């Protein structure tokens, strides 16, 4: 892609550009997001090695123990245990895997579908565009949770089902944004300039149109990643998502609901983990958008 990698080396550095790392250090909220999200991803990757217990191993003798620092707590179970004696800390760590996998994959699938469809609709136009827009309307008329319930019943609840449902219903917003931006970009003179120089459709789309879509798509995608993680949690909470004994923040919250008064630690720790993840994804999204905009460098 880089047309002139060596050109800047031939000349003296003209404008002082602040490195991305410097700018990250100067942006406290972006830094916070990167640190927290990095931590969550780190924990998720290292879950098998750092979690103190097997998250799926029951220990009925140690049922509903409070966190270690409270009366009756066991130092082996830092965040306490649930009804079946599962270690809450281990389950919270393992859940990060499920949630991040589902959140990122579902949004990646939606972005891929939506941007592709949107580019075709906006760039080609005509009958194709009409069809796509009507499809989007139809899609919007079907509540995704309802679709998820139907699909979960039909092909069985699993992480793949959730990803397919959330990804397959989420494309509409990306397609709409993409189509709109492509329509306006297509008429900008720099796109016309590229065409007049002999650029083909592929180059116009990939070099001159798609880069401009990164910011708007990124803004929506970070919000949608949070929503996808939350949607997975709701589905699991309803019993349609991740099936026990596999842990997920949503199913942990669902299990903990009955014990809110007596064993708050069942819901509070996965809840905090969920909140921190969603928050940090949003912060990172904002930061990435700024980093990607040459006008802000």
């Amino acid at each position: 892609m880089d047309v002139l990698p060596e050109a800047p080396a031939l000349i003296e550095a003209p404008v002082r550009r602040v490195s991305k790392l410097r700018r990250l250090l100067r942006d406290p909220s972006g830094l916070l997001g990167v640190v927290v999200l990095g931590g969550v991803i780190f924990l998720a990757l290292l879950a098998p090695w750092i979690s103190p217990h097997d998250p799926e191993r029951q220990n009925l003798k140690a049922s509903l123990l409070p966190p270690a620092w409270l009366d009756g707590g066991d130092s082996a179970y830092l965040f306490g245990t649930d009804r079946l004696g599962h270690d809450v800390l281990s389950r919270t760590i393992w859940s990060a895997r499920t949630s991040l996998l589902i959140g990122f994959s579902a949004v990646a699938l939606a972005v891929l579908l939506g941007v592709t469809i949107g580019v075709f609709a906006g760039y080609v136009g005509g009958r194709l565009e009409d069809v796509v827009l009507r499809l989007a309307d139809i899609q919007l008329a079907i509540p995704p949770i309802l679709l998820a319930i139907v699909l979960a019943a039909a092909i069985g609840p699993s992480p793949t089902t959730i990803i397919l449902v959330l990804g397959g219903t989420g494309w509409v917003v990306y397609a709409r944004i993409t189509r709109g931006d492509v329509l306006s970009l297509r008429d900008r003179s720099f796109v016309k300039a590229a065409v007049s120089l002999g650029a083909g459709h592929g180059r116009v789309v990939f070099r001159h149109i798609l880069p401009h879509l990164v910011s708007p798509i990124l803004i929506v995608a970070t919000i949608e990643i949070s929503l996808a993680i939350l949607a997975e949690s709701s589905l699991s909470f309803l019993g349609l998502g991740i099936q026990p004994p596999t842990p997920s923040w949503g199913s942990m919250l669902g299990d903990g609901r009955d014990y809110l008064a007596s064993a708050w630690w069942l819901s509070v720790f996965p809840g905090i983990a969920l909140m921190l993840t969603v928050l940090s994804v949003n912060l990172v999204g904002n930061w990435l958008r700024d980093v990607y905009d040459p006008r802000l460098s």
Partner: protein
Amino acid sequence: MTTSNTPLGSAGEPVLSVRGLSVDFLVNGEWSTVVHDLSYEVRPHEVLAIVGESGSGKTQSSMALIGLLPPSGRATGSVKLDGTEILGLPGKRMSGIRGRQVGVVFQEPMTAMNPVYTIGFQICEVLRFHLGMSKRQARARAIELLRLVDLPDPELTVRKYPHQLSGGQLQRAVIAQAIACEPRLLIADEPTTALDVTVQAGILDLLRSLKDRIASSIILISHDLGVVADIADRVLVMKAGRVVESESSEQIFYRPAQPYTKELIAAVPTLTATAVSETPPAEVAEEAAPTDALVSARRLAIDYGTDRGPRFRAVDGVDFHIGRGEVLGLVGESGSGKSTIGQAAVGLVPVADGSLVIDGVELAGIRSADLKALRRRVSIVFQDPGSSLDPRMQIADSIAEPLVLHRLAKGKELAKRVNDLLDQVHLPRTMLARFPHELSGGQRQRVGIARAIALEPVLLVADEPTSALDVSVQAKVLEVFEELQRQHGFACLFISHDLAVVERLANRIAVMRRGSLVEAGPTRHLLDHPRHQYTRELLAAVPVADPHEQRTRRETRRLLSARGTPS
């Protein structure tokens, strides 16, 4: 209210007196001053022109008078309107002055009027707010005002929405709104910049007559010295937030004291045409296209519009030709179809009917492979350099793009070619790694030109390449252009609304109006002996930076328009 014609610069107390006005903006937590210690007076019936290039502070200093600075700006000093201090008045009292005692006319009439209300409603709103008129009174007055600004059928116009008027008509409506309460002072910020020359002439006539009819003084903010010469009594020249020179119009134009003023006047492209000779010589028609012409159009027709909206015929039955190495100036007003022809020449819009042959290739019904091959030899420079460069691409990549696209160079060779091109348009190589927003308008347009000549085209289409630039910048860009044209010898279709620019560059001129070619001929000949009435009107309407000359031209124009316009 007096309507006597007071002689220049006399007549007692100034309407507006500005003392030590400074304007600062908060940038990254620090106050930076954009207008330094500005002092001037405006006397009754006087037109004061504030002249300067973009960034000189001419607009900000005038907006500061009536508290219209953006939130990050502040103004200090003293501004007295009829002896009363108005600078820094609280919001409510300032609202009572804006529109009542000071009227403002903005540059772009389309954005100055709210598109969801009728013209009448928006004028009545002012009248009812400031003068407490009843609905009926306000309506009657609105119609009167529309008549005052010479709008046809005021009773009908009052019920129209902004989009139903043309740009010139709308600007008249905006002026009607601005003078609704008979303000003491009218601030006109580039009131004719967005308009065609013939329309501009009419608006200037209107402003000139209004200052007497409603006894108002005018501050005219403009970058166009021709406009200033046409109407101003006194001129204030600004540069980088400071006053360079402030003198009577005569003094500024005939005996400028400051070098910057001289430079500014020298940079204005002047039309040397004796223009409006009364008897057009009965010349033979435009010579037939030579057989070896690089570009030849025969009964060319082009439709405009997208596949989503209705199409209309923007160009119809146009014949022209351009020889090798020849520069054809294509002039006309907005909507005349001149840009459409330029876009068709590079294959951006298809030829609907007739024939357009460039370098032996027929563009009507051309196959995309042939078009790509043709684009290797034909290129275009767009009007707005800000939007014709991809904002996410560094300058080096933009200039390199045509070479990369046609696989003409890569690696070291590519870098060398890009550096060469940059040298040719006189830009320092330090620009290579910059992004378009880090360049000035003139620099960006040079990049646009460098990119266009990268492929050594046989034909260059230049679509109003300097109309978005300041005069001094325009002069330099035109110089670069002339130099390149001499060196490379490409033929050029130079599209412009500015006859003076075209006169300087073009070997031949073609005049367009409403999608058809009005007349064409060798530059000198066409300018000296225009045959068509429209060409003569166009020539007469071009403002020149010379008050005396401008006065005679006004007279000729009046004579011309009295004769009526056959189309």
